[in-house]
């Protein structure tokens, strides 16, 4: 395992050396990505990745918290709870390519008419559409962890609060939530790690343009590109060394970011379950 990880890291670094050498650190905030002119800047993709992931995260958090609370506290046993839990897990099992395909033919027209209504350019595809699909895809990761954590809250704590006359909502807000806060946060981090690296569904829905949008409205509803989607689209077309290695450098950045986020998340969980 060690060899595998070190091998992956070394390969990525060696292959991205040409672009690190010729483009320097400025690569990360260069605003223009134009392979024809030999200008490479990662800024559009960094922004695209952050934007899609965070919108997806914001949409998904109420749902994953609701599932955690419902299955962890209100209804932890019984057939209904089992059915719901298995259904949530199936959401994660559906291949991302199928979400992308479905989104392209069903969600895109819906979004397009929605965009016409709120008076933005009706692309249909774009950052917002991919965030919606991403949100659905990442819910199970935060939810299944949240369920386990909320079930681990010691019942004397809850009983104490009930004995003081607290209502169910108050117990959840002032006992369960503070107790599980760090763990639920770790679940959100794991979802974020998933969202950052997700490739296929996003590639099919985001519209793949490397230009930076001028207004916030355009940035959210217009087409964009993420690090993963630009690699997927341009890797086999990259025809000279710097182009190719700039793409690999993006992969390297993606690798580091997801690994760090995942490790922090895992660390928090281990700490939480041990204490």
């Amino acid at each position, binding site marked *: *395992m*060690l060899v*595998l*990880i070190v*091998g*992956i890291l070394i*390969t*990525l670094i060696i*292959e991205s050396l040409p672009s690190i050498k010729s483009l320097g650190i400025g690569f990360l905030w260069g605003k223009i990505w134009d392979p024809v002119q030999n200008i490479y800047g990662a800024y559009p993709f960094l922004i695209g990745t952050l934007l899609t992931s965070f919108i997806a995260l914001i949409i998904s958090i*109420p*749902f994953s918290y*609701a*599932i955690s*609370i*419902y299955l962890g506290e*209100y209804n932890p046993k019984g057939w209904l709870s089992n059915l*719901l839990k298995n*259904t*949530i897990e*199936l*959401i994660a*099992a*559906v*291949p*991302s*390519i*199928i979400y*992308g*395909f*479905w989104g*392209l*033919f*069903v969600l895109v027209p819906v979004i397009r008419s929605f965009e016409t209504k709120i008076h933005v350019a009706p692309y249909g595809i774009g950052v917002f559409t991919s965030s919606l699909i991403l949100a*659905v895809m990442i*819910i199970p990761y935060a939810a299944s962890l949240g369920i386990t954590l909320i079930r681990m809250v010691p019942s004397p704590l809850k009983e104490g609060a009930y004995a003081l006359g607290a*209502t*169910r*909502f*108050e117990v*959840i807000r002032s006992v369960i939530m503070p107790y599980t806060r760090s763990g639920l946060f770790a679940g959100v981090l794991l979802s974020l790690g998933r969202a*950052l*690296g*997700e*490739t*296929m569904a996003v590639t*099919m829905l985001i519209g793949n343009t490397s230009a930076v949008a001028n207004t916030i409205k355009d940035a959210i509803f217009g087409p964009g590109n993420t690090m*993963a989607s630009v*690699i*997927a689209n341009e*890797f*086999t077309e990259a025809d000279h060394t710097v182009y190719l290695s700039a*793409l690999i450098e993006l*992969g390297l950045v*993606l*690798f580091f970011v*997801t*690994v760090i986020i*995942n*490790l922090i998340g*895992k660390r928090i969980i281990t700490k939480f379950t041990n204490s």
Partner: protein
Amino acid sequence: MDARIGIRNTKSILFKGLIVFLAFVITLPLIIVLLYIIKQGVTQVNWHFLTHVPAPVGETGGGISNALLGSLIIVAMSSIVAIPVGILTGIYLSENPHTRLAYYSGLCVDILQGVPSIVVGIVVYFWIVKPLGTFSAISGSIALAIMMLPIVIRSTEQTLRLLPPSLKEAALSLGVPYHRVILKVIVPCGFAGILSGIMLSIARIIGETAPLLFTAFGNPYLSSSITKPMETLPHLIYTYATSPYDDWHNLAWGASFILLMFVLLLNIFTKLITRKWNIQL
């Protein structure tokens, strides 16, 4: 005083309502996607569809036999690579949980689980595709094997950890050599858990597209040569879904239907096994 309690109770009830609503609403997208794929896909599937290669644009008919065969070969090859390595690593991690090597390999398993699949694709491109000079099925299998490893390792490790230590101690006290204890006592006892881990990992990799883009690449013809490019189900869906032709979209719906059914059945089957043997994954 009474009014205050009334407000608090109402708040509590409203909150419960909101939670229940949100928790159930999220199953809707899944149900909609499933129904849509089934509706679009089920009419496409017939014997001809399963046994023919895709037709060129403009001709009706055609099937996905190349992708079915390709997915089967590639998944089988990655299982051959990943399952033995994964199980052995899992046994090592559960048998020696406190050594330094185990700590670092455990850490690496965690890292590997978080690596985006597209990055795995890039790396395998430089490891295998570039030296060989051609996209090939074998490189696709290696990429998928890397994706498969962490799931197999973790499930093996966790199943074996749950086994009571007295089991191993009893076998050892009878004078059975260590390797036979592992092979004849530990592994058979945890077999159901290991098996369900393997099935979950297969369900996961069979739908992976990103690592295959630069490795197995895709191939419109029926091919069983592992050193040549090979078509797989998810890659076929990707190329045909993004094409402008209706015939090809239909082909992709059919392929999605088959892929989805396979993945769901594998998942449900795994659930049944784990429930029967009472395993927590």
